[in-house]
């Protein structure tokens, strides 16, 4: 643990501090414990990895600036990348030297990735990217980004003809414009791409297959990897402590109990998912159950905290207020909860596709 809490990783100052923390973790293989040792991991199996995550967040250790890379790009590279790509990208990611931003959303395409319009045009030795990406988390301070680009505008269906590429945020033709967020943090950005050259070695998987590759990444994002149960157990304990400190008022009793119950449910559900993984099963649409659950849970928990704080809950610098505003984004990112409910209904309950 750092001797002092680090400044928020959504600020320039905090970003630098978190890079240093990431490097310290990586020096002994702790920044990506489940990776092979040759890329900077400890080769932990699923159970030890989950235990590490639980302990990490229970200790209230710093949030991870490398998260987009470690939990979204890295699994994609393990599944679809080349050995050359893994060897080049992963060790620097583990050490926080290269911090990755996700460049999926576009102004006219949020959860509907099939309507992406930013283009990749074939040129000798690679591709040229043009168009606009937006709401890219941490892109204001990150080094590189990964995203989907339309490489075949003539493809028969809108989700075909997309290519998954990695690109440099400081490359010629890239303009990064920070966007202020609801929580006052400047780390969000929109990206304007004007004929940005990307070599073939930075294309992941087959050109035109980006959708299929991205869907696998999206399931990872919603499923096990993004939200460790340790976070919610720690949050629920903090809420319980706050409630006690405020004299255990009757009016919040049920909500505090439900926060404790919800954290336990999430923990046990994660163990159950892990058991299924170990049994050789893959988790697909079930990840959508998780995503809706933790995002709604997170907001309810923080609303209860603000209710307990009363007037103090209004102050923007109050830690609970900051965590509350951050939680508000949960039902929106990683595929809106409306999209997740459609996935649950269609893929897990077998209901027919129809009107949106």
């Amino acid at each position, binding site marked *: 643990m750092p001797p002092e809490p680090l400044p928020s990783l959504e600020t320039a100052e905090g970003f630098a501090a978190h890079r240093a923390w990431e490097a310290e973790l990586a020096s002994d293989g702790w920044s990506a414990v489940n990776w092979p040792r040759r890329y900077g991991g400890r080769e932990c199996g699923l159970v030890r990895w989950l235990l590490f995550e639980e302990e990490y967040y229970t200790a209230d250790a710093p949030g991870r600036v490398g998260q987009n890379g470690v939990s979204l790009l890295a699994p994609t590279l393990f599944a679809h990348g080349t050995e050359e790509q893994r060897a080049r990208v992963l060790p620097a990611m583990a050490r926080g030297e290269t911090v990755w931003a996700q460049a999926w959303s576009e102004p006219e395409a949020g959860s509907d990735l099939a309507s992406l319009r930013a283009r990749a045009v074939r040129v000798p030795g690679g591709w040229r990217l043009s168009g606009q990406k937006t709401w890219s988390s941490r892109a204001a301070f990150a080094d590189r980004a990964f995203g989907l680009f339309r490489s075949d505008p003539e493809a028969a269906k809108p989700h075909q003809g997309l290519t998954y590429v990695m690109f440099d945020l400081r490359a010629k033709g890239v303009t990064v414009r920070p966007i202020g967020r609801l929580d006052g943090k400047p780390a969000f950005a929109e990206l304007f791409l004007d004929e940005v050259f990307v070599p073939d070695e930075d294309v992941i998987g087959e050109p035109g297959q980006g959708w299929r590759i991205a869907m696998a990444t999206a399931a990872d994002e919603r499923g096990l990897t993004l939200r460790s149960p340790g976070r919610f157990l720690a949050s629920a304990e903090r809420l*319980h402590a706050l409630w006690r400190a405020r004299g255990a008022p009757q009016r919040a*009793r*049920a909500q*505090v*109990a*439900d926060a*404790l*119950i*919800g954290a*336990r*449910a*999430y923990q*046990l*559900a994660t*163990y*159950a998912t892990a058991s299924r993984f170990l049994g050789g099963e893959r988790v697909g649409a*079930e990840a959508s*159950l998780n995503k*809706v*659950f933790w995002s709604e849970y997170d907001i309810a928990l923080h609303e209860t905290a603000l209710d307990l704080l009363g007037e103090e809950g209004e102050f923007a610098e109050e830690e609970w207020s900051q965590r509350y505003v951050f939680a508000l984004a949960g039902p929106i990112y990683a595929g809106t909860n*409306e999209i*997740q*409910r*459609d996935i*649950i*209904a*269609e893929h*897990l*309950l*077998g*209901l*027919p*596709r*129809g*009107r*949106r």
Partner: protein
Amino acid sequence: MLAAAGTPAAVRDWSRGERAAGRALWSRIAEAGVFALAVPEAYEGLGPRPVELAVAFVELGRYAVPGPLVETVAAAAALSAPGPAAGRFLPGLASGESMATLAREGGYALDGDAATARLVLAADGLRLAPGHGPVRASLDPARRLTRLHPGGELLDPDPAADRALLWARLATAAQALGVGLALLDRTVGYVKQRVQFGVPIGSFQAVKHRLADAKIALEFARPLVLGAAVTMTPADVAAAKVSACEAAYTTARTALQLHGAIGYTAEYDLSLWLTKARALRTAWGDPDACRTEVLRDRA
């Protein structure tokens, strides 16, 4: 076994005090070893095995089986300390030959008229009630409630009352989860075939999202129920009871809304699960009592 048993007809008979079908079902459940899971091996049981019992009670809920299922398990737990009472009652409970009900003093007992052993957790110990009062119908037709007469034989001055409550709560939580799963299954089936405006109503996003929320609630209650059966701590069991009962109740509301008027029709079988979801929410510790237990453990 339960799928073939036609439990809705058995429930409707049971609600009129006609118990032949219910008793036949009870014997088959006992032969499968369900009650034996709550009875120690020393008394001709297979237990105590709370995990297996929870799995079995999910199925009893799924098929809306009538009778004092939870109460028989709770009675077995209350009688589990070695002694003459254990030897006298437990083998019969394990085999299904007898059917118990159990109430806290002054409370209502489920199926006091049907049970062959009527037990009361009184201030001075576990008593065998000398009789019961008039039978009152529950809003769940499978449940018939009575007050047991005070007094009667003192079976054990120091019964395992906490243990009885723990097992009763676990079994109720599992049963409620099964009720919720049945309601979800039936409703999903219904909205796929019910056509309005020229399409199945299951293709409407408003319908899908309510069912998705029910699915989420049930899928996060399930690990709490099974996890509680592993640890058997009062806080875990109470958390499972709140979560499973709230999930089942939310699902019941969704099921009724999405079925519309047919769901409100008593002769339509859905009603048997709808009303049970409400009744189980209150039985053996309502949500408030269970939340208190969750917080008490951390005081």
